[in-house]
C-alpha cells in the first residue's frame, strides 16, 4: 500500500546544506580526520556516509575509509513472526580497534537499529569511540541512544513513516513524513 505524503521535511537543497553543516561539525569536533572511519548502516546510511565522505574529501583533501554494516543479523525482533528481510552484506575490511568510528544512518527513531549496529561494530574490534550522525531525528526513543550530529529534528506521530529518498535510488533527494497506516 502506498502511503500518502503528509509533509515535506527537507528538499534537495535543505538536505545538501544539512550534510555540509554536519561535515563541518564532525571536522570541528574531531579536529580533523585522523583515525576517522565512516560506517554507514544499510541502506540509507550508506548513501549518506558516501556523501559525507566526499564532502570531507573536498574540505580536508583526505579520503576517509568507509565501511558498510547490515544489522539484519543483530536485530532483537528476529523471532517476532516477520518474513525475514534479505540479509545484505556487511563490508568492514579493516579492524576498528583504536579507530574513531562515525556511524551514519538516515533516521533515528526508537534507537534499536543503532543498538544493533553497535553490537555488530564491537565484533570488529574495540573502537576508540563511536559517534552517531543522522539526517533526521524523529523522537520516540525506546532505548537511551542519542545522535552526536543531527540534520533536523522532526515531530512525528508514532504511526507515521519518515521516508528519506535518495537521488541514487529513487531519483530525487528529499525527506517526507508519510501518513501512517492505522
Amino acid at each position, binding site marked *: 500500500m502506498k502511503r500518502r505524503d503528509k509533509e515535506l521535511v527537507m528538499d534537495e537543497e535543505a538536505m545538501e546544506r544539512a550534510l555540509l553543516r554536519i561535515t563541518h561539525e564532525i571536522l570541528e569536533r574531531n579536529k580533523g580526520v585522523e583515525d576517522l572511519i565512516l560506517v554507514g548502516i544499510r541502506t540509507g546510511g550508506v548513501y549518506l556516509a558516501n556523501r559525507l565522505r566526499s564532502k570531507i574529501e573536498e574540505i580536508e583533501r583526505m579520503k576517509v575509509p568507509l565501511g558498510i554494516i547490515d544489522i539484519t543479523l543483530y536485530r532483537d525482533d528476529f523471532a517476532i513472526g516477520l518474513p525475514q528481510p534479505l540479509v545484505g552484506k*556487511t563490508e568492514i575490511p579493516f579492524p576498528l580497534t583504536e579507530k574513531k568510528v562515525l556511524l551514519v544512518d538516515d533516521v533515528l527513531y526508537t534507537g534499536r537499529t543503532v543498538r544493533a549496529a553497535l553490537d555488530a561494530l564491537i*565484533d570488529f574490534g574495540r573502537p576508540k569511540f563511536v559517534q552517531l550522525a543522522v539526517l533526521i531525528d524523529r523522537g520516540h526513543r525506546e532505548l537511551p541512544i542519542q545522535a552526536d550530529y543531527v540534520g533536523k529534528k522532526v515531530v512525528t506521530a508514532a504511526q507515521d513513516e519518515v521516508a528519506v529518498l535518495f537521488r541514487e535510488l529513487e531519483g530525487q533527494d528529499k525527506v517526507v513524513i508519510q501518513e501512517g497506516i492505522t
Partner: protein
Amino acid sequence: MADYEGRSAGRGPSGKPLLGLAGKDILGIQEMGLGEIELILDTAESFKEVSTREIKKVPTLRGKTVINLFFEASTRTRTSFEIAAKRLSADTINISASSSSVVKGETLIDTAKNLEAMKPDCLVIRHSAAGAPHLLARLMDVPVINAGDGAHEHPTQALLDLFTVREKRGKIAGLKVAIVGDILHSRVARSNIFGFTKMGAEIHLTGPETMRPAEVERLGVRWYPRLEEVVSEVDVIMMLRIQLERQGGGFFPTLREYSRFFGLNLEVLKRARPEVLIMHPGPLNRGVEIAPEVADGPFSVILDQVTNGVAVRMALLYLLTGGEREANRSPS
C-alpha cells in the same frame, strides 16, 4: 511494525520486498522453486562474510537448538552444519546412530518424536533410506533439513555447488556442467541435476555404463560414454567419488581400469576449456577418480566448495528457523 526505522515495514534493506522459503523444510531440490534457490544463494553471500571476520559469530540464532541426527557416517557435512549453527550462536547437538538407542532397536519415528519433545528448533538428518527426512518432516513441526537420504537427494550439497559456480562465473544459466562417475548411486548427482537444470545450465553425464541410471535422459540430461568426449565441451567438471566398496559389485573390473577411463588427470585436463572449474563433493580418492595434481591444481575449486558449504548452511538455518513458524504455534 515501524521499529527499525521502517526496515521491517514490508521491505528489506535493499528496498526489495521481504521473501521467505515456501515450506518449513529443505528436503530436496526437485520440489524447490527457482526463486527459493536464488534467495538461498543470495542470503549465503552475506553469511560468507561472517566467516572472514575475527569474531566469526553473529547473535541471530541465539538460544536456538539445532540437532544433527546422522544415521550414516559423515565428518564433512556434519561438521559443516555444526560450524554453521555455532557461527549463528545456536546450540548444536550431534547424534550419530551408532552411539544412540537406535542400536537398542528404537525406530526412526520414536527417535525423532523423543527429540522433538525436547523442543529443538531445527533437525538436520542424514539417513540411508530415501524418504526418511520426508517422513520426519511430515510427522514433526520442527523444520527438517535433508543432509542426504540414500541415493535420493543431497540438497545442501547441490546448493553449495550452485553457489560456488555462480560465485566463480557470475551466473549459471547457459553453462555446461559435466558430472562424472557413479551417477547411479549418487544423491549428489541427482540434486545437482535438478539444481543446475532449474537454473538454466545443461548437464552432461558420463561414467561406466553399469553406473548409468535407466532412462536418465528423462531428467533432461545428455549421456556420454567417455570422459574425453565431454571434457572439452563443458565449463564445469564435477567428479563423483567412486566408492571403493563397489569394486566387488561387478560395476567395473578394477579401480585402475575405472581410473583409466573415467579418472580426471592432467592428460585429460589438457582438453578442457581454459576457464574450466573442477569440483568434487569429497572425500577425494586421490589417484582414482581424480589425480592429486588436478585436485590441488589451479582449476580446482574443491576447497571453495567446503567454505561455501558453511555459508549456504548458515543461510538455510537462518531462513528456516527465524521467526515463529506457523506450525510452532500449536496449542499445548
